């Protein structure tokens, strides 16, 4: 027998879509507060949000007449007709949130529109309304959710431990607090104050308030415009990146979104600065015409769909890249780092679960840190590389080069003692040249007298033929030669001493084998540069070293190899003095 589901069951099922876990409740309630134009939002979470979630704001409040509808499905004050869906400027619009939450908890709203009449309070337990009753309160709304999921034990079983859920709640508050300049946020977890973001704080100050000053010190600002898409934010320097993402926040028109493509775009912008195994921390704010983005994709509104996905990708990628190019990326070993600096915890590093895992900024754990770079530094170095025909104010210092373990190069320059990884630097030089050659259509290809046949498994065979054009642009001319074989008619001239089958297979590797660097052609240039570069263990002559350093200096960016490993470490004279305890004598 088929029968319509009772109303309360329907509500509970629907609730599952919006109210996945305590953090989603926190997010919905804060967004409601923001929609009510709150200037101040206080959040308390108890027992991982399962015991208590309390969001208090000083917003417009709800009038008594509307209060009865607050817990009704698809009741919203924010959307009147379908046309409005095209230009969604508010956060809540589906009218689902409170109804869903009310169906699976013991909820209470206390609100006042600030008139002399005072306020009203309305309770809702598992969807059953109690009230409203008059109450004395100030302007604004307080929503208290207790015993979340008390009537859906199955959902409760899927949740993590209280500390995990509390960390997620914290992340939800963080992401909203970062982006809403002008609004003051504070967060309490189990009665302990976690952070407070002042209303007047800018993004950098907000990051510092939430993650700590040390964390922000390792970040660079980014900003860019591309095709009407504006990108702003902060990005960690590669040297401070971590194997697990600590903070990756994307906002589209001030809405927090989880979009893998945006994360990939950031990674792609960092691609040749950052090892594939490490994750950058970042906050990216994207602003574009609301008509160019569809936010009505997912009940939690965490996913968005861009009308011109590639343009957004490019805008983000370029902004990140430009930010890193403008920064000085050579890690500098620091005397303090080496001498195990003591930490300065404060309440920020308290027992909060999120912090326990990730709360240690890079400069505490790594002996190296990146310092922001004065622009003159670059200019000086380029100037030096010029032939002495250019009149120099002072005689250029004599350069001496030393190769250590057939792997590292040592030399001095005005910035200090420079240690270079020969493979990484050569890889970077070749990569830059290959990029230039590719862009100029000059990537040379050695034709083969005897086409080389390579047997491939069926998926590689299909991929090779699908990539024919891309491979040809790289100098590898591949044609089908039977069902499981390809014939190679030309190879990249720069790699002609490589084993052709190995090269082909390396170029066919799916992108995720390299840390998700999405741009296929570029990544293949990495592979080629890596294969062609001098290896660790190759002895080099002084001329070769000098030529390599000169070529490196001529590049826009030679601080990291294409895989993001640093090419050089610079120990400035004052650090040497500290290390040798010379300073102060």
């Amino acid at each position: 027998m088929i029968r319509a589901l009772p109303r309360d069951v329907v509500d509970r099922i629907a609730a599952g879509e919006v109210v996945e876990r305590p953090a989603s409740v926190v997010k919905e309630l804060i967004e409601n507060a923001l929609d009510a134009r709150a200037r101040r939002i206080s959040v308390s979470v108890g027992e991982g949000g399962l015991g208590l979630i309390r969001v208090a704001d000083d917003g417009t409040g709800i009038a008594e007449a509307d209060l009865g509808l607050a817990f009704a499905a698809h009741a919203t004050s924010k959307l009147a007709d379908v046309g409005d869906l095209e230009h969604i400027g508010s956060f809540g619009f589906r009218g689902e949130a409170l109804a869903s939450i009310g169906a699976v908890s013991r909820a209470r709203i206390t609100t006042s529109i600030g008139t002399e009449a005072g306020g009203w309070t309305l309770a809702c337990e598992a969807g059953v309304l109690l009230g409203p009753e008059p109450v004395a309160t100030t302007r604004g709304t307080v929503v208290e959710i207790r015993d979340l999921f008390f009537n859906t034990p199955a959902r409760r079983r899927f949740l993590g431990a209280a500390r995990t859920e509390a960390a997620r709640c914290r992340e939800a508050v963080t992401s909203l607090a970062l982006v809403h300049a002008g609004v003051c946020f504070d967060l309490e977890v189990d009665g302990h104050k976690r952070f407070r973001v002042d209303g007047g704080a800018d993004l950098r100050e907000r990051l510092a308030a939430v993650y700590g000053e040390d964390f922000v010190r390792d970040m660079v600002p980014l900003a860019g415009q591309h095709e009407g898409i504006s990108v702003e934010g902060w990005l960690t320097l590669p040297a401070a990146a971590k194997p697990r993402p600590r903070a990756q926040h994307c906002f589209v028109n001030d809405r927090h979104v989880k979009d893998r493509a945006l994360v990939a775009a950031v990674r792609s912008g960092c691609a040749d600065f950052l090892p594939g195994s490490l994750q950058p921390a970042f906050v990216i704010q994207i602003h574009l015409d609301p008509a160019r983005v569809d936010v009505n994709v997912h009940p939690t509104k965490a996913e968005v769909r861009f009308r011109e996905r590639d343009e957004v990708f490019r805008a983000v990628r370029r902004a990140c890249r430009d930010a890193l190019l403008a920064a000085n990326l050579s890690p500098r070993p620091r005397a303090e780092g080496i001498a195990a600096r003591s930490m300065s915890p404060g309440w920020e590093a308290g027992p909060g679960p999120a912090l326990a895992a990730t709360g240690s900024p890079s400069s505490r754990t790594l002996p190296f840190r990146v310092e922001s770079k004065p622009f003159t530094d670059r200019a000086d170095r380029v100037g030096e590389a010029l032939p002495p025909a250019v009149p120099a104010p002072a005689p250029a210092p004599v350069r001496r080069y030393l190769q250590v373990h057939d792997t590292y190069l040592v030399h001095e320059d005005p910035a200090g003692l420079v240690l270079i990884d020969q493979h990484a630097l050569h890889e970077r030089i070749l990569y830059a040249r290959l990029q230039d050659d590719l862009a100029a259509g000059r990537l040379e290809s050695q034709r083969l007298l005897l086409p080389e046949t390579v047997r491939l498994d069926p998926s590689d065979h299909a991929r090779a033929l699908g990539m024919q054009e891309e491979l040809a642009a790289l100098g590898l001319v591949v044609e089908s030669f039977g069902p499981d074989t390809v014939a190679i008619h030309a190879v990249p001239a720069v790699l002609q001493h490589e084993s052709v089958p190995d090269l082909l297979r390396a170029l066919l590797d799916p992108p995720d084998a390299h840390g998700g660097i999405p741009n296929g052609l570029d990544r293949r240039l990495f592979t080629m540069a890596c294969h062609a570069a001098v290896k660790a263990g190759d002895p080099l002559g002084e001329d070769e070293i000098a030529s390599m350093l000169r070529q490196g200096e001529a590049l826009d960016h030679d601080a990291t190899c294409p895989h993001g490993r640093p090419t050089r470490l610079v120990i400035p004279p004052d650090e040497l003095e500290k290390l040798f305890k010379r300073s102060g004598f």
Partner: protein
Amino acid sequence: MKLVTPRELFLHHLQLVAPISPVRTARPVFKDVLLEASPGQLRLVTTDGEISMTSIATHAGISGEGRAALPAGILLSAVRSLESDELTLEQKGPFHELTGGASSFKLHGEDPEVFPEIGSLDEDGAVAIPKTGFLDLCARTMFAAAKEMGRYAFNGVLLEIEPKEVTLVATDGRRLSLARMTTETGVSERASCILPLKGLAQLQRAASEGDDDVVKVQIRENQVLFALQGAQILSRLVEGEFPDFRAVLPKEKDAPLEAQIDRSELERAIRRAAVTAGEEARSVELSFDAGKLKISSRQDGLGESESEMPVEYQGEAVDIRFNPEFIGEYLKSLSDSAVTFRFKDRASAGYFATSERAVYVIMPITS
């Protein structure tokens, strides 16, 4: 053992066989040279497991009897450093004592019985090939073989013996050099094998001196024996299938344009162009136009170079690019004063020739 021998003679033969001994090996005995003395004759044998070389010194001044296995490198240095005209090598207890005048060495040897058996040196059925001609074929081809281990038999040189012709072919897949000579070989049908470079290089060394007229070549199932009067080289053959070189030799119609070029002038121009061709991706451009050839190269951040030379050429203007090493190595291998270059366009194979019997096919670099 006991051996008395003129120093010069001993040194000469040691120098011939010592390069076979590998620098690094898991079997220490491969580093040794086996010495077998008998009145009037000394045999020296070295092997690396793939190639073995026997050199026989015959001289009235040699006397003694017995066998010894001594490290080839140290023995060579020791003999070189001694100054007397005559040397004595004698086993004394655990040592072999090498004496020359008032100086002496004590060297540790191996038991000669553990020195590996090398195959039979029976020369029956060997083909006699004129030595000078054969060395010329080697010089014209060996450079074109692949230096690295690659696919097929690229790191070897194909030897084909036909009733009236001997051919050597080497290729690394990007260029191919073929040289053949006419000679009565006495075989009734074509026989072929792939010779390893190391074995051929050893033959070149051994054959470049001595007054032999011919090199005797005997192709076996998986070995080849080269025999000279005082030396024999037994080498394992390169296994695999040599590519069908006849299929890739361009016909005249595939390369309708022809230029006559002065060899040494071209060689110098290529060397100049190579300076600015860069280190990794190297190419030089040959620009043919009526009566002249311009050779140029250019590398961003490095510079550019240009040379022009008169050539006999009547065709249209064509630019074609090659790896300068490929041309340079070829020209260096020649003693001829002029070369013919035939080609079609910038993307097709071109070939150099000094005669119908010596052809060098080379693939261009395109972008």
